[in-house]
């Protein structure tokens, strides 16, 4: 054996032993490197609404969520109305995610505004995830049907039940950018069965954009903006006024089993077709309402 070969051999053996005497922990890392684990993003938002509009979130499988949403009157009349506190508009609702199919949520609510009942379904299409499988966004579809149960204004004419109905359909696309920041885009289709004039369209389109910034562990700043894509002249008027977009600013405060959302918003209604079709007051005219949502979760069974 020549000297070079001996050196070669020595070097090789050294190299070999060297790479094997790596820390046991590195070996453990290596062992789990080919793991097929998927890291699903959770808690993109703290509740199932960003403020008024739906968020990508749904109650966990087999959990019942009870939501009390409350909006005071607007600031428009100033101190005379105690800045809106004299009036109240409420929606109480339940949301429930079906066990076993865990991506399907049904909801039901009743609002004082126009004595409206509403029912919704939310289905999860895509979850943001990383690891073995990747997706940069979460996506859900949401549909809500609202039924105004007000007495007919003209009971003498033929009134159709279908005239009471209005609909909102949404695609919810969200991304949790970090522990703090989450954003969501919600293209929305609104349909009203009953409209007053032929210039108005039954079906029109809106786009909602919202997000949260979690600045403390249990407190997040939330915001939401929506506006119409359809030309405003074609949008059905509400009491002679043209509906406008909504702007909402608020805070989410989480306390164990409850999430409290406090918000300022120009949307008076809390059911989805109403949010995007019945809002006529503007921030510029002090048409802002203070309000809150209280979310309470009830676990109905074991999480398995």
């Amino acid at each position, binding site marked *: 054996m020549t000297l070079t070969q001996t050196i070669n*051999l020595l070097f090789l053996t050294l190299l070999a032993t060297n790479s*094997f005497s790596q820390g046991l922990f590195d070996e453990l890392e290596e*062992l789990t490197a080919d793991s097929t684990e998927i*890291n699903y993003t959770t*808690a993109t938002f703290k509740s199932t609404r960003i403020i008024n509009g739906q968020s990508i979130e749904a109650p966990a499988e087999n959990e019942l969520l009870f939501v009390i949403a409350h909006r005071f009157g607007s600031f428009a009349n100033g101190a005379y109305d105690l800045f809106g506190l004299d009036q109240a508009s409420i929606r109480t609702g339940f949301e429930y995610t079906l066990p076993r199919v865990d991506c399907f949520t049904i909801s039901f609510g009743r609002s004082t505004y126009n004595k409206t009942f509403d029912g919704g379904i939310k289905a999860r299409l895509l979850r943001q995830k990383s690891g073995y499988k990747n997706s940069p966004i979460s996506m859900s579809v949401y549909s809500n049907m609202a039924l105004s149960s007000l007495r007919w204004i003209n009971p003498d004419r033929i009134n159709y039940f279908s005239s009471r109905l209005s609909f909102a359909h949404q695609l919810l696309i969200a991304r949790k950018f970090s522990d703090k920041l989450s954003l969501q885009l919600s293209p929305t289709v609104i349909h009203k069965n009953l409209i007053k004039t032929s210039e108005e369209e039954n079906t029109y389109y809106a786009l909602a954009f919202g997000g949260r910034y979690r600045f403390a562990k249990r407190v997040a700043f939330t915001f939401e903006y929506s506006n119409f894509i359809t030309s405003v002249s074609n949008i059905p008027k509400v009491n002679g006024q043209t509906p406008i977009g909504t702007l909402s600013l608020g805070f989410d405060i989480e306390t*164990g089993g409850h999430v409290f959302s406090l918000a300022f918003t120009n949307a008076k209604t809390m059911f989805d077709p109403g949010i995007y079709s019945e809002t006529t007051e503007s921030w510029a005219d002090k048409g802002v309402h203070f309000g809150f949502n209280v979310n309470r979760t009830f*676990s109905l069974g074991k999480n398995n």
Partner: protein
Amino acid sequence: MKKTLFILSLLTLSIIGNSQGKLATKTAKITFHSETPIEKIEATTNQAAAILNKKTGEIAFKALIKSFEFEKALMQEHFNENYMESETYPKAMFKGKIEDLSAVNFDQPGNYDATVKGSLTIHGETKPITVSAKIKVKEDKKNIDVSSNFKVKLEDYNIKNDKIKNIASDIDVNVNGSLTELQKK
């Protein structure tokens, strides 16, 4: 040519020689529980990884925080979001060494008690820890069960409890793994 073969076989030998004496698992079970008058919390993962070097007595564990499953989904969310901050600190790790290695005979099936001294990393904080472990060498000597019970103090790992203290300040942790001889690919 012969020399190359010799070198190669030497290398192969050293690889085999090295992978022997190590046992591992990817499905170790870790359970913890906390009990206060307000709430009873229990969570389990079956996806912890563990490795043991028979020769040196070195042992290491790793678990993904997000893999812990709770009875209630909301507990799991709060655990990840508010207590463990699992996006920032995704793993819990233990790295240690069997103190009295001579007392454990890996070639003799049976039950052994051992003291493992090492460091535990949770929530980004690493603290020294000494735990007593039970080691069971199975009949075939290729499988070894390792189990241990110990307590973790929340404040040691900078995990903030609620003001109303619905979580115990000392969490009971139970680790259980069946390690099998490691096969190099």
